């Protein structure tokens, strides 16, 4: 097992190098750089900038160096824990991202738990009552959640919440609690504002999860060991939960790789519509304004999380499922 993990970690190194090159390439692709856009914007507003200052800044951040060298410096600094400087916020990237990280993790965690709470019972129910009206109805409901564009659902729910419950529009808390220390009132305000993003982001994920849980569980339920268990009189609930459900959850563990980065980035578009103080809008804004170190380092961070997530889920799968564990041993 340890050798397997070590091998996987080694294999991740070239992937990470490729990703870093791709990320750097992507953020370099749009013509111009942050300072050009910045100067153009200021000039459009009729203001002037000291060209010497811009020249100095460009030199300071190595914009006059060849691209390859810029890339090397960026990677080298990242390896030393320096993720660069955000031009727009005039703060180190770690601080910009860090200030929003807790709220993002909060929103994402609640959303994931919401998704599981909804998807699990429905998926199991649909699989055990295949082709019944309730199966069709629930599956349809899940599909509907998938089909409605998230941003629009967010808008409509936000409007309804404002009319019915008087929840203030957008943000994660009432404006008066921004920057305040945590208190019971602030907590209540956050909880109130969490509902919409959680429901909106949750609906799209729920549909996919219901479908896969249903399909996997159906495959499992057709197998002979389930028939045997039923025939020898194992109670129906136990015959469902003991093995078939556990087996059908493999896909669920395999999903951890995808969940980890989305916990950090959150749902970008919904967050923009609801003006949530999460990292998603930050990333989108950084990409648009070519705030390259903020965008690049954050993308790199997300990609690294994906790779770690995939590794974790592979190890977890191997630990949980003896068949996969044996395969690993055989291929070695």
């Amino acid at each position: 097992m340890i050798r397997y993990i070590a091998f996987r970690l080694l294999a991740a190194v070239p992937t990470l190098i490729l990703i870093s090159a791709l990320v750097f390439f992507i953020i370099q692709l749009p013509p111009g750089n942050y300072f050009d856009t910045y100067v153009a914007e200021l000039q459009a507003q009729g203001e002037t900038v000291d060209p010497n200052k811009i020249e100095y800044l460009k030199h300071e951040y190595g914009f006059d160096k060849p691209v390859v060298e810029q890339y090397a410096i960026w990677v080298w600094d990242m390896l030393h824990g320096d993720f660069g400087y955000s031009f727009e916020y005039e703060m180190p990237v770690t601080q910009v991202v860090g200030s929003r990280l807790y709220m993002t993790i909060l929103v994402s965690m609640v959303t994931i738990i919401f998704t599981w709470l909804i998807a699990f019972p429905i998926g199991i129910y649909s699989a055990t009552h295949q082709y019944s009206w309730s199966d069709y109805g629930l599956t349809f409901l899940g599909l509907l959640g998938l089909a409605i564009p998230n941003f629009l659902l967010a808008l409509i729910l936000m409007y309804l919440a404002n009319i019915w419950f008087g929840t203030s529009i957008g943000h994660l808390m009432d404006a008066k609690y921004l920057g305040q220390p945590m208190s019971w009132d602030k907590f209540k305000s956050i909880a109130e504002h969490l509902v919409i993003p959680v429901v909106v982001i949750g609906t799209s994920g729920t549909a996919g999860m219901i479908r896969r849980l249903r399909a996997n569980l159906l495959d499992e339920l057709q197998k002979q060991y389930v028939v045997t268990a039923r025939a020898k009189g194992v109670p129906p609930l136990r015959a469902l939960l003991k093995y078939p459900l556990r087996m059908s959850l493999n896909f669920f563990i395999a999903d951890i790789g995808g969940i980890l980065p989305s916990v950090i980035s959150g749902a970008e578009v919904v967050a923009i519509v609801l003006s949530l103080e999460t990292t998603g809008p930050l990333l989108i804004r950084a990409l648009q304004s070519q705030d390259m170190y903020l965008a690049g380092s954050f993308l790199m961070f997300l990609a690294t999380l994906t790779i770690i997530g995939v590794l974790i889920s592979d190890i977890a799968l191997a630990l949980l499922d003896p068949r996969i564990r044996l395969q690993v041993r055989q291929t070695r």
Partner: protein
Amino acid sequence: MDAIPGPLPPDGAPIAHYISPKPFDPKAIEKLSPIQERVYLASQLRLMWWKFKKHRAAVYSGFFLLILYTSILISEFLAPYNLSHRHVDNIYMPPQGIHLFHDGKFVGPFVYGTRYHLDMDTLRREYPVDRSVVHKLRFFCEGDPYRFWGLFEARFHLFCGPKGNDAVFLLGTDRLGRDMLSRIIYGTRISLTIGLIGITVSFLLGISIGGLAGYYGGWIDIVVQRIIEVLQSLPSIPLWLALAAIMPVDWSPIIVYFGITIILGLIDWTGLARAVRSKLLSLREEDYVMAAELMGASPRRIIFRHLIPGFLSHLIASATITIPSMILGETALSFLGLGLRPPVTSWGVLLNEAQNINVVALYPWLILPVVPVILVILAFNFLGDGLRDAADPYHTAW
């Protein structure tokens, strides 16, 4: 009764028990009845069609999509007005209901007239219904001129308001007084083709790259695997954003449209390539591939003649399921203002106008383009489900 059978009767004498006089057919048991023959000897395609027909929702969805795709050929005719025709007297007009009876008499489909009125307190445009004015709908009538398929001038429309009077806006108008129904009908053209072109790009890439990796294995496989891993580890929306930002601002909207579809396809192919690769890896160990190789078939012939038909149906089904994600992706991109740009009009571009909470509160009919989006996505999902079940030979529907 004679318990023990006796010796055979003398030559020529009939045997004691019954013998069928019919000629002996050694294959009698294996012979199929005509009904069985129809099932057992049916081609793969025919079997799939039978299974597909069982899936009601899929059949209806397919039919619905077929109608929509046919409609994009004649959008100009179906839409009552041109895409950019501005009715300056009818800005932000709410949808009108179609009525059939007026004063207890049957008049045929008509709408009531409206009077424009500006609320001086809220500065809101209001259009109270005037029950005394009846605008009868005309069918197959002359309206806004257009160039049909860019070939010839035409003025023919499915229906329009009374002559010389733009008074019929079944789904209301937007902030420039453009008819929503017409815009949604024109938007169908862009939104539906974006999914198709995108999926074609992704399909070609997925099959060829995944096919190479799966068939040859070795270092090609390792490189392809790494590339897929890299692409999949980056979140898709930032990727779209970055790629959409590359497109020069001075490109014409039509080229931007193709650019966006290609971007959607470029990012989507990884999943398909993975599926192709793993299928090929398992299929190339089959005996019939070995047989083909021994007979001297070239790799190209083996891939295209023997391997791809083996899982093409499965691939098409899974591609159908990914079309909705492309349509949704386009709406999300356009919503962020990074996708298509007017005058190219897609459902996403239309929804871009509805991104303000005021719109939801004051002019809720501007979010109507979401209805076709939802319907099309549901339809593609059902169709894809039906196709997938039909393409799966181990899944029997009867």
